[in-house]
């Protein structure tokens, strides 16, 4: 039998592909010889667009960079503006931001669990995860008026206070989700089929992960307890207690377990924030948006999004518009160098498995 190399286009129109992204694979039989990531299907040039708009007009743009988890993108832009303009955020707003960010992390992880379970054929678990994500979206709708894009944060705090009875609804949701965790565990995480399908897939060592620029659960799955919420706390993360879950093996199985444990920690953080929610105002007044100029300078701010280190490098030349904004998104390194590395030598049927376990979101790569 003669084996020869074939070029195979995986995505953007492919059942095993999540989002608008494509990979060009060179295959020999079923084995991938070489993989080349091909992003750009969602390149909208947000960084350039933001240079044309004032600091206040830009509030509505960054959340659109990441569809799955818009609140982290909002938060990073607000932190950049606050850091350059030296605005202090009231304590109550910090707590509310923490609640919103953690709810958003839950929604994002549930979405990830849906994608992974769906790809493996665990349709029931996938539907459960999607249904619970919908409950989070309901909460967001009540809080902000929007289900997907919230635009709830503003420089100096959040737009408005929590509605009456919102805390109770969040607690109810967390209780319902917590009651359901054993079902998730039995059906997916402790399932032998999941173990067989995910164990050893897309394995990366800690050294390689650092060399290729991994952050977030890709790094934590290799045994490194690195979490920006602990290392350089922002919002109210220095006032809550939580653990940084890790696993040792660096494969898809470990990454999924890290995500599982992180959801439980998120729930703990939300409960602590609601219990200790301080009273007071929720935003600091900012100047007239038409005349607002931000002092000259540059800053780099970073947060732990549900995928890893999300950063923004913001440059102001003292004008009404940002001079340059660069978003350092975790999917950029996970989706291009690490994905290409892990696909080399893998089986064609594992492409989706590896990509979803790395938690790559294509709009975040393209920006």
């Amino acid at each position: 039998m003669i084996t020869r190399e074939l070029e195979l286009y995986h995505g953007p129109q492919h059942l095993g592909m999540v989002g608008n992204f494509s990979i060009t694979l060179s295959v020999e039989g079923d084995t991938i010889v070489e993989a080349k990531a091909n992003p750009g299907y969602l390149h909208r040039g947000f960084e350039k667009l933001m240079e044309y708009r004032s600091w206040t007009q830009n509030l509505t743009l960054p959340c659109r960079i990441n569809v799955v988890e818009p609140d982290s993108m909002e938060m990073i832009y607000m932190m950049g503006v606050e850091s350059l303009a030296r605005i202090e955020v009231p304590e109550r707003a910090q707590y509310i931001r923490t609640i919103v960010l953690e709810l958003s992390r839950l929604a994002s992880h549930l979405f990830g669990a849906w994608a992974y379970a769906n790809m493996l054929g665990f349709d029931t678990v996938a539907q459960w995860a999607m249904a619970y994500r919908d409950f989070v979206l309901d909460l967001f709708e009540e809080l902000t008026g929007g289900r997907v894009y919230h635009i709830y944060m503003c420089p100096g705090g959040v737009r408005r206070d929590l509605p009456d009875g919102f805390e109770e609804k969040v607690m109810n949701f967390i209780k319902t989700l917590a009651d359901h965790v054993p079902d998730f565990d039995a059906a997916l995480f402790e399932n032998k089929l999941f173990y067989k399908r995910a164990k050893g897939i897309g394995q990366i060592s800690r050294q390689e992960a650092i060399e290729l620029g991994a952050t977030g659960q890709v790094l934590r799955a290799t045994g490194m307890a690195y979490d920006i919420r602990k290392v350089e706390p922002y919002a109210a993360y220095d006032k809550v207690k939580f653990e940084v879950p890790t696993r040792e093996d660096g494969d898809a199985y470990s990454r999924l377990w890290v995500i599982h444990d992180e959801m439980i920690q998120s729930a703990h953080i939300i409960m602590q924030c609601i219990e200790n929610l301080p009273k007071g105002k929720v935003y600091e007044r900012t100047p007239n948006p038409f005349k607002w100029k931000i002092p000259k300078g540059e800053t780099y701010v970073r947060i732990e999004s549900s995928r890893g280190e999300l950063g923004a490098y913001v440059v102001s030349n003292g004008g009404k518009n940002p001079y340059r904004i660069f978003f350092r998104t975790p999917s950029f390194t996970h989706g291009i160098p690490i994905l290409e590395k892990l696909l080399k030598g893998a089986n064609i049927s594992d492409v989706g498995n590896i990509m979803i376990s790395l938690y790559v979101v294509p709009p975040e790569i393209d920006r």
Partner: protein
Amino acid sequence: MNEELAKEIIDNFSNTGVSYTSKYRMYIQTPKEELFRLLEYLKDNGFNYLVMITCVDWIDENEFELVYQVGNFNTPLRIIIQVRIPRNDPTYKSIIPIFKNATDYEREIHELFGIVFEGNPRLIPLFLDNWQRFHPFKKDFDSREYVKNTFDSIPTLEEYK
């Protein structure tokens, strides 16, 4: 540790300035000849993680500013290195021999700003397809003007009839 590191950098590298904006951010301005030695020095001192590379187009000063950021997993300190290169001769050396994951950041800057990184084997299009005319993130590219010129000329539905 930060003060010692800052002092050593000023002592060992010529024309290099160090400043802080906050306790966890160190900014280093260095001439373009010193960058490689500086990155290697920082890598030996535990800053073994390349966080990002980006570019700022300072059109009034006729210069591109390349921004490299390195991190260390044992300290929250981040070091941001700013290097200026002339705008009319946008070539620079690739840092792939020091940090492997620089490939795609340099590829992005090559595409959006037109800077050529010598030694990068993969300066192929990243986001933009069939786009050889100009580099869209440069300040002298007006995207509104471009949209107007490109898309206003498309006939409307009425004109088709």
